[in-house]
């Protein structure tokens, strides 16, 4: 077995030293009738070549984003990640280290976490950010709990433009905590009246921009009314790259900003691992969940970094912790941070412009097609179309023609009567050929 260094001779010598005759004597506390005598009825060990063959065969059954015209988004996005990112995150010292509990020999991790926190704060226009969450949706649920702690109220209002899965995650955790959630109906055109929902009983309002339909939203008026009633505005995004081109939530008065960071530095991975971004105002730092890295000095006066404010966390506070979270998304936030460092403000603006330009190009090509309506007034790289017939069938038919066209809204919300909507995402990876293929496949799929 290539991963096990001990030889049978080593094992004998060690058992002698421990003064037991057989390794099962070390398992003496296991009830005797429960100890398995032989390995379970499962396949035996395999060499690298064989494992590689088995898994490659399974992988080959999937249609991959890079091999087809690809327009699927709604919470996860296909972008080009520079080769150096994946190379760097595979450095042994990043890949195979643990949470930086011994800061003297973990300055590499702590240093990039400090940079990551700063990058996220700058990107969102907020004061501080934590060292990442599992993903955007879990971050969103944590943000609601945080707002309840700060306001000492327990009613959250969720915009109808919030990703339905995010709303579901919030409702699940709120149900468990005994909190109250008001979910607005799906708001395709960003015209819902959230202001009417805000009063002194509300802890927070959760609004996504760009929203799940792709619309851009101004949050200023909502923030103002929230603050008048001592409630918090939680701003959500699922497409981090949008922040290169649109007004950041911090400038619109958001108190907590959460988002999915997958777009920058990370692959699609069929849904994970991703990286949740979480930022807030300085005043709320001590109510923030998750790990935090801070700057300090060592015994010789040199600048260094440590995990700090950990009394908020479960290993000290136990049942009084701000959250039960123990890990962050370490390597995924490193990938995010490296990619963003390669981009800088200049590159981020450029790639965001290309995303927007490609979306505008496709929207303009779709507008004249009979039986297709582009619903958005504004958008970044994602918009919603209404098609004749069932969107899920159209998307399926387009997939059979080799085009992955987007997400039918019915996949996210099956019972909302939105069976004719498709959310279409664009990015810098899409070419003119991709867009032509999209239009052709759509026309053919509609006429059937």
């Amino acid at each position, binding site marked *: 077995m290539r991963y096990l260094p001990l030889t049978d001779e080593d094992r004998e010598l060690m058992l002698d030293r421990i003064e037991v005759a057989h390794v099962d004597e070390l398992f003496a506390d296991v009830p005797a009738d429960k100890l398995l005598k032989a390995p379970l009825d499962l396949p035996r060990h395999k060499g690298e070549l064989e494992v590689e063959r088995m898994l490659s065969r399974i992988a080959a059954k999937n249609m991959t984003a890079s091999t087809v015209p690809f327009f699927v988004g709604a919470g996860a996005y296909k972008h080009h990640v520079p080769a150096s990112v994946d190379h760097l995150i595979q450095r042994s010292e990043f890949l195979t280290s643990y949470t930086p509990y011994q800061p003297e020999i973990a300055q590499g991790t702590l240093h990039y976490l400090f940079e990551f926190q700063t990058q996220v704060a700058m990107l969102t226009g907020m004061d501080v950010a934590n060292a990442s969450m599992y993903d955007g949706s879990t971050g969103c649920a944590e943000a609601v709990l945080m707002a309840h702690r700060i306001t000492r109220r327990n009613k959250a209002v969720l915009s109808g433009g919030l990703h339905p899965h995010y709303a579901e995650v919030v409702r699940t955790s709120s149900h468990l905590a005994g909190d109250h959630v008001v979910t607005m109906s799906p708001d395709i055109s960003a015209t819902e009246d959230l202001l009417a929902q805000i009063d002194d009983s509300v802890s927070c309002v959760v609004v996504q921009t760009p929203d799940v339909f792709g619309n851009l939203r101004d949050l200023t008026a909502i923030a103002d009314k929230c603050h008048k009633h001592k409630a918090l505005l939680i701003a959500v995004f699922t497409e981090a790259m949008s922040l290169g081109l649109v007004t950041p939530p911090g400038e619109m008065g958001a108190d907590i900003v959460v988002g999915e960071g997958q777009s920058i530095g990370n692959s699609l991975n069929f849904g994970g691992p991703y990286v949740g971004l979480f930022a807030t105002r300085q005043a709320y730092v001590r109510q923030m969940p998750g790990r935090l890295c801070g700057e300090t000095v060592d015994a010789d006066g040199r600048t260094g970094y440590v995990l700090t404010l*950990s*009394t908020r966390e479960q290993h*000290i*506070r136990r049942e*009084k912790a701000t959250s039960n979270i123990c890990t962050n998304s370490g390597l995924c936030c490193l990938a995010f941070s490296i990619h963003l460092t390669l981009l800088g403000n200049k590159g981020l603006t450029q790639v965001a412009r290309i995303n927007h330009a490609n979306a505008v190009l496709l929207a303009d090509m779709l507008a004249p097609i009979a039986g297709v309506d582009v619903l958005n007034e504004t958008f970044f790289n994602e918009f919603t179309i209404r098609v004749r017939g069932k969107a899920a069938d159209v998307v399926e038919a387009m997939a059979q023609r080799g085009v992955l066209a987007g997400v039918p809204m019915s996949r996210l919300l099956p019972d909302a009567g939105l069976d004719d909507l498709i959310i279409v995402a664009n990015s810098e990876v899409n070419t003119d050929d991709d867009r032509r293929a999209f239009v052709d496949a759509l026309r053919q799929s509609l006429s059937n």
Partner: protein
Amino acid sequence: MSNIRYTKDHEYIRLDGDVGTVGITDYAQHQLGDVVFVELPSVGDAIVAGKQAAVVESVKAASEVYAPVSGEIVEVNSAIEAEPAVVNEDPVGKGWFVKLKITNPDEFAKLMDEDAYKAFVASMS
């Protein structure tokens, strides 16, 4: 007779008329280590004996500060919020947490006096 009393959770209360000054003892600050954060109640809050009155945090631990007696908060020491190190440097002096107007003097009388507390601490080590 001294006007200071102690709890088994290492809070002290010094009584001046019907106003008690509450903080943590020197033993407590020593056990906690460097205090880095203090969370205080608001003036006007009604506090019940044995229930949480404040929170004190060091780098490695977070502890509740319980009210030794019941009463209403009449003053909080914002100076220790700004500079928590004072709790370590002068816990029974400048490092006090809250002042409360006590409602039930009997509760005070039942607490440990200086000698009893010293014996209690000695029994812990």
